[in-house]
């Protein structure tokens, strides 16, 4: 039962990941791709947290924290260079 639910949760996350990846490939503009990368890293955070609970490894949560920090910096850097280009 629990295992089935975990598979369902991971399937939902994977579906979101695939949708974001299609948008990343298709574009059509650079900001679209930046937003897609942002969402992908949030989805990866979700994956990591679900895996931490599934295998009872609290240490994995630290990875999620660092990922949240780095993602914000990356997005701000992208926005900065986009605005300089405009």
């Amino acid at each position: 039962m629990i295992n089935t639910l975990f598979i369902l949760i991971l399937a939902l996350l994977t579906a979101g990941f695939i949708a974001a990846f299609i948008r990343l490939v298709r574009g059509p503009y650079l900001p679209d791709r930046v937003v897609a990368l942002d969402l992908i890293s949030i989805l990866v955070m979700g994956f990591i947290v679900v895996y931490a609970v599934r295998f009872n490894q609290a240490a994995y949560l630290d990875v999620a924290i660092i990922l949240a920090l780095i993602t914000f910096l990356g997005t701000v850097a992208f926005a900065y260079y986009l605005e300089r280009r405009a």
Partner: protein
Amino acid sequence: MAREIVVMSLFLVGAFLMFLAGLGLLRMPDLFLRMSATSKAGSLGAGLVLLGAVVFFQDWGITARALATIVFLFLTAPVAAHMIGRAAYFDGVPLWKGTVRDDLRGHYKLSTHRLETQATPPDDKESIDAVVQRIDDH
């Protein structure tokens, strides 16, 4: 057992919201609508998944870290979305053809990237006829 039910419900709702964010990113018609889907549904979904971890581990250190992550996410997601939206607006990313209102039109000085209260006269407002025409076309 009760703990598992709470954790699984939080995970399911959070994962579903993140899936909706991905779907919105794929299906919405222009960048600004896409951003509205990802920044809201995405951060709420991630927050719910982290809350699930809090309920599962029931440890003060983990609770503090997870709550700090949630607060950080909710503080930074709007800032990041605003910065990308601003940069994209300057970059000339087109709005959806069904858009009826663009309050920023004419208010941004493209040379300095400053927001001006006084709109520059020529394209201050679209005439109401043009808007009606565009809705009809759509």
